[in-house]
């Protein structure tokens, strides 16, 4: 991960925007909410860039992203979960399921996203940061402000629950 500070808000959007969007989308399953979160994160980045202290920019950015998401979840706590848009089905149909035979018969993207949304938030966040975004355990621990041991446990329990849900969906 880089420690250099992007020069501008636009550069942060260009370099990190897609990852932030994917993080938000996988956590909430809704493209509009994900886009709103990206805008909120970029706004917070724009406000915070002047006071940013050189260090791990990625760690700083993911802390902002995670906090913005938590704030948004709290704000919309009473809103019902929106169904997945049709476009997700199209993307899922085009995606490659990989080599895993156990998943060959599943409607991959849709089932995985649905199973993900059923996970408790802490587990969902941990597996998305690890397996979708590709952050290391240390980076996740810094972003979420928990010990690495907690990250280990959350990822493991998240995957166990996800695997059970996928098997049930396939059965």
């Amino acid at each position: 991960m880089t420690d250099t500070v992007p020069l501008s808000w636009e550069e942060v959007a260009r370099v990190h925007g897609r990852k932030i969007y994917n993080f938000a989308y996988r956590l909430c399953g809704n493209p509009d909410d994900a886009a709103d979160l990206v805008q909120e994160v970029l706004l917070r980045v724009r406000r915070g860039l002047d006071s940013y202290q050189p260090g791990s920019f990625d760690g700083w950015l993911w802390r902002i992203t995670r906090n913005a998401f938590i704030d948004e979840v709290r704000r919309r706590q009473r809103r019902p979960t929106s169904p997945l848009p049709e476009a997700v089905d199209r993307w899922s149909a085009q995606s490659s399921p990989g080599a895993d035979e156990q998943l060959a018969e599943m409607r991959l993207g849709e089932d995985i996203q649905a199973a993900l949304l059923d996970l408790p938030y802490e587990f969902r966040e941990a597996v998305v940061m690890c397996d979708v975004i590709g952050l290391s355990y240390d980076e996740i621990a810094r972003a979420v402000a928990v010990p690495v041991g907690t990250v280990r446990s959350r990822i493991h329990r998240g995957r166990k629950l996800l695997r059970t849900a996928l098997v049930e969906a396939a059965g």
Partner: protein
Amino acid sequence: MKHLDELMSVFLDGETNPAESVRVRRHLLECEQCRRRLEELNVARSALRSLPVLELPMSLVEPRPVTPLVKRPSVWVGTAAAVAAAVIAIATVVTPPAEPLSLSDVSRQLGARASLDAGGVSLKVVAPSGEANE
């Protein structure tokens, strides 16, 4: 035999330290149950990693129009200013002066003509309506 439990996910991610890696490998050689669980965990891990990467909507990265820095005063600001001006005006009229009024003060504040009577004892004020008050 103590099973590996969460150490298996850590091992899958390459996040075990050297001592843990040795322990996991040794255990997997002996424990069929943990080998099966490791495969199951890898199913979930592979499923997440197989999700397509979504493109950022272009609307989020396009330059935004520059918004003017000068803000129009709000209705509330205008109302507050009017109320403040009215309070000051009323206070100016009703507040008793610290010193006796001079003729020029009376004339200026009440908009009236003032004059002393012939004896110079009483003050006669003629209001704009023409009524005289003593």
